[in-house]
């Protein structure tokens, strides 16, 4: 059952990702990207990472996809056919990507990591799923990196405003 679900969701992710790359229409690409992110959330659920799955849906499917659609809306307003072609390195990039995948897949299979069986479902899994353990980590051992990432998000917020509005206009 679990393998069937994995293959179904992996097929959803891979087909959406390929459609995103191959679609000639930028808006369709954005929608396929959202579908791929949604499929990834289900794969995370199969890995018993429920918190990451929810974050994936909230941040990627919810926020980042909408941000991309807004970006498309603010830059290109005429007909969208053929708005998303390949550049002059298309063929070379495809070959390099395939070669990279062949290399990575070979490395993974040769390493034979599949012999490592997954640990049995943790018996001491706390009620509330993985969120409890992750939040304990964030408020304890990883408190400083968490603050640093908050600072990064603040800097990105200010930077996006300054870059988007232009330096002169954003002075107050």
């Amino acid at each position, binding site marked *: 059952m*679990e393998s069937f679900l994995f293959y179904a969701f992996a097929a959803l992710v891979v087909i959406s990702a390929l459609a995103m790359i191959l679609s000639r229409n930028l808006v369709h690409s954005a929608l396929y990207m959202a579908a791929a992110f949604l499929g990834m959330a289900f794969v995370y659920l199969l890995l018993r990472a429920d*918190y990451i799955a929810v974050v994936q849906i909230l941040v990627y499917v919810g926020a980042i996809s909408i941000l991309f659609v807004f*970006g498309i809306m603010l830059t290109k307003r005429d007909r969208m056919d053929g708005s998303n072609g390949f550049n002059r390195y298309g063929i070379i990039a495809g070959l390099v990507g395939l070669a990279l995948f062949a290399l990575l897949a070979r490395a993974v*299979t040769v390493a034979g990591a599949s012999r490592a069986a*997954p640990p049995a479902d943790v018996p001491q899994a706390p009620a509330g799923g993985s969120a409890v353990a992750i939040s304990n980590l964030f408020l304890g051992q990883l408190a400083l990196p968490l603050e640093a990432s908050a600072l*990064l998000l603040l800097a*990105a917020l200010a930077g*996006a405003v300054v*870059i988007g509005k*232009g330096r002169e206009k954003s002075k107050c």
Partner: protein
Amino acid sequence: MLGLNHYLVLAALLFCIGFIGAVAKRNAIAVLMGVELMLNGVNLNLVAFDRFGNHAEPLGQAFAVFIVAVAAAEVAVALAMILTLYRKRGNTNVDDLEGLKW
């Protein structure tokens, strides 16, 4: 039986599709979508190793959360740059961007 390999190969596939999108597309927004796909592939690696590894704390999942935060910041800044570019250039074609300064 599902092993670590299945997830790693899926992550590698996602990373490579994202790579092709990031390198081969003409529109800057599509390039950014490719980068997002690559980051997702890396995240899947981290979560899979966290699941199949043997440790008490979900450090891999915590790292994945950090990557999600960095990806969100990256998209916000990059889209602001693309909007500025569009205002100055009238299109978002990466083939036209050959100078470092204009």
